[in-house]
């Protein structure tokens, strides 16, 4: 892990020193345990703070579209920066979708592809330790050592505290990046749609109750939308006023409309990075619903988001023999 970090820092330093990029987006130590915070390194000196460990979960692609918009306070000509992103494969796939949808210019992005062994889910770590965790250290035999706020130490298998997105990840190894950092990655998950078939086997009534149960926790903070790299609309449908799609209150029907709309808009975009899940302050099980869209798009159109720059986004195109078993015939 440490070796990977050093190589990543070196790559970042080289890119900045050579003037190939103006900015490296990476991670640095923050003030919260089990979470790294985004780092915007603008010169070679700043790269010493870059880190790589089990807590670099955030999808930094979310910052990209904003970096290529002319700032409001700049008058006259403005040149878009060239930005390198320290990216796990899921983040890189988000970047590819953004490029395909013309949200960021390909020539201005350098992908630093990181090998990924899965990221720790702080909530699972808290649960495993049964207390507030202040530190998490890798121990031998794929165990982790969790230090709690009370000073206690709990051991847990590493796999048990990894994020669901990582446990179900089909693409952990870097591929197609501009700079590939060598290192060990997790094996691809055998079943990328973990809990879906279980949920699908419930009755319609049970599914609806479960959906409403999850969504009724929502406080409409829109953190899921803000954290999602592929939710890039300048004005979200939920905030449009002409016409107004939904009321602004906490009425369940409006909240359901928001989530159905938001998740549906991810069709052909969602890479399953779980940025929405991490951002949710109410622990809504969004993954259970976002995965369905991903699975359907794969099954119906054979499309997996972020795999190649050449494939057309699935909902912008069609095939003459697309599935139409859902059509009602009199």
């Amino acid at each position, binding site marked *: 892990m440490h070796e990977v970090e050093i190589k990543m820092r070196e790559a970042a330093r080289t890119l900045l020193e050579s003037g190939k990029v103006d900015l490296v987006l990476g991670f640095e130590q923050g003030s919260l345990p089990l979470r790294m915070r985004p780092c915007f390194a603008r010169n070679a000196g700043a790269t010493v703070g870059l880190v790589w460990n089990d807590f670099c979960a955030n999808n930094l692609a979310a910052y990209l579209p904003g970096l290529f918009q002319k700032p409001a306070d700049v008058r006259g000509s403005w040149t878009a920066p060239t930005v390198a992103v320290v990216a796990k494969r899921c983040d890189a796939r988000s970047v590819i979708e953004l490029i395909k949808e013309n949200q960021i210019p390909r020539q201005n992005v350098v992908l630093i592809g990181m090998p990924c062994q899965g990221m720790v889910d702080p909530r699972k770590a808290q649960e495993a330790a049964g207390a507030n965790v202040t530190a998490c250290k890798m121990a031998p035999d794929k165990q982790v050592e969790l230090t709690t706020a009370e000073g206690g130490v709990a051991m847990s298998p590493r796999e048990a505290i990894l994020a669901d997105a990582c446990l179900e990840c089909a693409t952990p190894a870097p591929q197609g990046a501009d700079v590939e950092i060598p290192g060990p990655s997790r094996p691809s998950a055998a079943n990328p749609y973990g809990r879906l078939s279980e*949920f*699908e086997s419930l009755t*319609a*009534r*049970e*599914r*609806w*109750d*479960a*959906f409403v149960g999850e969504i009724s926790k929502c406080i409409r903070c829109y953190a899921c939308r803000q954290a999602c790299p592929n939710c890039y609309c300048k004005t979200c*449908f939920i905030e449009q*006023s*002409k*016409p*107004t*799609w*939904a*009321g602004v209150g906490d*009425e369940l*029907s*409006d909240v*359901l*409309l928001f989530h*159905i*709309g938001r*998740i*549906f808009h991810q*069709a052909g975009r969602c890479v399953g990075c779980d940025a929405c899940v991490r951002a949710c302050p109410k622990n809504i099980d969004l993954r259970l*619903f976002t995965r*369905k*869209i991903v699975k*359907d*798009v794969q099954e*119906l*159109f054979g499309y997996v988001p972020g795999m190649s720059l050449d494939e057309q986004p*699935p*909902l*912008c*195109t*069609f095939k*003459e023999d*697309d*599935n*139409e078993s*859902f*059509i*009602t*015939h*009199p």
Partner: protein
Amino acid sequence: MADISTTPDAAVAPDAPSAWEPRIVAFLCNWCSYAGADLAGVSRLQYPTNVRVIRVPCSGRVNPLYIVKALQLGVDGVLVSGCHPGDCHYISGNLVARRKFAVLKSFLHYLGIEEGRVHFSWVSASEGNRFADLIQKVSDDIRRLGPARQLRKEAK
């Protein structure tokens, strides 16, 4: 454009169970299905009167959100109908729509929205009979399900 979140009174009038009639919104494409409905009319074909038609230029014009929104506004069922594949006035609008609807229908089913609330179909301008039969089927389906309550926003 009107604020569509203020629900029209007629759409959310409380159901009197004895006299309940399904309210169905049909988005019909201008070039085929709307003309098909017209043909059903001028041919004096009988079909249920539960359907309210909204004419759209193309089935590709139908934003999936319209369908969810209609259910929120209190309709009991939604039908979207366009030209048969290959017959689109705009060459491929219905083929792109077909992809959107396939994902939407499967997603709504997954979330537990009652099967049969949302229908998609193709009706050409010469298929007056098919249109009448389709409305009969959709109306029967939705009548069997009863009033839609899952997404409805209750009137204050």
